[in-house]
């Protein structure tokens, strides 16, 4: 019965090789390329990078320990870390996403959101696949919770990215959408090149990073928006697969380094909207970061693995706003509710609207030389 030869097996199995294309096109290539317009020279490529990663330790038996984030993945040969973007090959750890963005866009800086950083500016925004957390409500999960071979990646090394940003007239480069910490090397080198060419650099992150790489990053970043997911370790463990305490250390590190930072807190009904937790968080911000850190309470929308909860009631967001103001924070916002009065920036001294907003649009701006036009009260931020 089993008389076929090896040659026959190989011949038969190889029969259709001629027509086999091995490229991967799971996501929309056309939209990305059409958006790039004149930059189509940067053709979409399916390949990954193989650039040695920074911040890792070589161990015995070809293992490595990643030191980028507090997870400190111990990774065997031919395996990847939790983020899926770093791979151990023969005891050397590589980033697979250096210069390989899967998402590019020009966004208003308000979309990040930054409300006290260059209002009305545009940010050339980029991301690669991957994330070092796994939030059950992630809105970008189709790029953050996949491996980089499952996304449509462009070949856009730092210098080319900066050139493109300049061509598009964006004064700011933003690493965002997924989690820039997992494309750390790409962020660092792009920011360094951007700064050299007169652009500014911002990062949108969950802040789950080790102090040493953070300190290095702070040398080239101008502003950071941190998603503070909750104020309990329980939530971090169960809902986003991370830890709270390193994120708090990141916020303190940003303050020490003098990098402008704003905080977003996505209020998820029943999971992180307890009054006591919100009070404790606001008190911590007051004590450790001061009253002038902008705090954005954002509305949750059912998404990804968390579709069984309703959108956050506006009343819950307004209650959170009230708690934060009561704790002494000066700049508290409500996000993802266009038209809400707490989208505006108010002067904490005269209470007048200084920056009026509707969604991502600036309606008016009465801040002059960093001060309230009406009463002269200084307003913290980076205004030009």
């Amino acid at each position, binding site marked *: *019965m*089993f008389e*076929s*030869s*090896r040659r026959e*097996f*190989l*011949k*038969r*199995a*190889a*029969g*259709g*090789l*001629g*027509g*086999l*294309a*091995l*490229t*991967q*096109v*799971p996501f929309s290539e056309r939209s990305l390329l059409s958006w790039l317009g004149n930059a189509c020279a940067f053709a979409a490529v399916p390949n990954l990078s193989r650039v040695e990663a920074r911040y890792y330790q070589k161990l015995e*038996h*070809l*293992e490595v320990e990643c030191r980028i984030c507090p997870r400190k993945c*111990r990774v*065997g*040969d*031919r*395996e*990847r*870390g*939790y*983020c*899926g973007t770093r791979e151990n090959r023969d005891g050397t750890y590589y980033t697979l996403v250096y210069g390989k963005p899967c998402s590019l866009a020009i966004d208003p800086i308000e979309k990040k959101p930054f409300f006290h950083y260059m209002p009305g500016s545009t940010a050339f925004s980029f991301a690669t696949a991957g994330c070092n957390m*796994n939030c059950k409500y992630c809105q970008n999960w189709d790029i953050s*919770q*996949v*491996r980089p*071979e*499952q996304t449509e990646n462009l070949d856009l090394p730092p210098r080319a990215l900066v050139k493109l940003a300049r061509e598009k007239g964006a004064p700011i480069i933003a690493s965002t959408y997924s989690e820039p910490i997992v494309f750390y090397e790409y962020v660092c080198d792009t920011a360094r090149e951007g700064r050299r060419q007169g652009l500014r650099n911002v990062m949108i992150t969950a802040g789950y990073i080790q102090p040493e790489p953070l300190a290095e990053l702070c040398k080239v970043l101008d502003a950071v928006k941190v998603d503070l997911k909750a104020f309990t370790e329980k939530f971090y463990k169960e809902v986003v*697969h991370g830890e709270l305490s390193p994120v708090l250390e990141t916020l303190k590190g940003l303050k020490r380094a003098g990098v402008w930072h704003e905080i977003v807190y996505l209020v998820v009904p029943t999971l992180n909207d307890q009054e006591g937790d919100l009070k404790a968080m606001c008190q911590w911000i007051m004590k450790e970061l001061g009253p002038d850190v902008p705090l954005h309470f954002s509305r949750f929308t059912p998404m*990804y*693995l968390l579709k069984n909860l309703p959108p956050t009631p506006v009343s819950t967001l307004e209650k959170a706003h009230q708690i934060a103001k009561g704790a002494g924070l000066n700049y508290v916002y409500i996000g993802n509710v266009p038209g809400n009065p707490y989208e505006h920036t108010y002067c904490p001294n005269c209470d007048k609207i200084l920056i009026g907003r509707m969604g991502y649009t600036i309606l008016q701006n009465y801040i002059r030389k960093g001060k309230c036009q009406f009463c002269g009260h200084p307003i913290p931020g980076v205004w030009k």
Partner: protein
Amino acid sequence: MIIRSASLQTMPKPRVVIIKAPKFQFQPGVAQDSLMDRMLSLAMTKFTGKADPRDAWARFFNPKSVVGAKLNCLAGKWLSTSLPLAYAVAQGLKSVGVKEGNIIFWERMNSELKEAGYPLNYEGPGLRCFATDTNGVGYDSDLTVSGEVGSRVSRVLSSYVTHHINLPLVKDHTIPGLSAGMKNFYGAIHNPNKYHDNHCDPYVADVYSLPPIKSKNVLTILDATRIQYNFGPAYKAQWVENYNALIVGTDPVALDSVALKILEDIRRQKSMPTLEKAGRPVKYLATAADSSHRLGEYRLTKIEVIEAEVI
């Protein structure tokens, strides 16, 4: 009066068959080996109790079956599912009328298949062999959820095949402790990197419980011709034992429990600590057997193990 439901009556023990061939010699690039053919035929007849291998295969497959066979090719040509086993499986399937074009050997990435020595063939005549990353294959666009796992499943498994055979290896793995049958399905989802915390527990059990896997995988054949008994899953030549066996069964938990016993025995013979003492306890087996998963039996005393040898 006590009324017992049928499910509470004595259930037969799950059966696991181990067939050894001391003279088998693995060689990369060799696609067919008569000793392997005999090992598999004997394994199938012992497992099913049928005298004729064809009848044994017919218990699982029919001429209309489209059969996927997930290989394990992570570790390159020296430690991947052996080509002679794939060949023998194909012969067994063909013996009951499954068409060659309806037999698909597959992996995550074509690069892994090529490195292991498998010739790629997506749509040409003959046996098919391709990976999920082949153009037009990919993963489901929707997530499938099972316990703590939410993943896109390879379309090879969810869309292409009606039946599935799992063809993994037996390895020590520095995170879950054991990489054998159930862990092989990490290669069937888009985000395996998310499921290595806590020694992969409960994730291995949750992944196996994903409906396309649990419902379609009808047979597991562990390629235990070589066992990586330390510091897997990558190939480390100094810690590979030529065990020269196939392990066959349908209960995924029982199979992995038997594989674990073999792995621990080898480690003990080599004066190595147990996996638990080495810091990688195999936690997922008890979870797979618990009341929320019910994937099979993990207690060795409750498993019928049949051993035989091919000379």
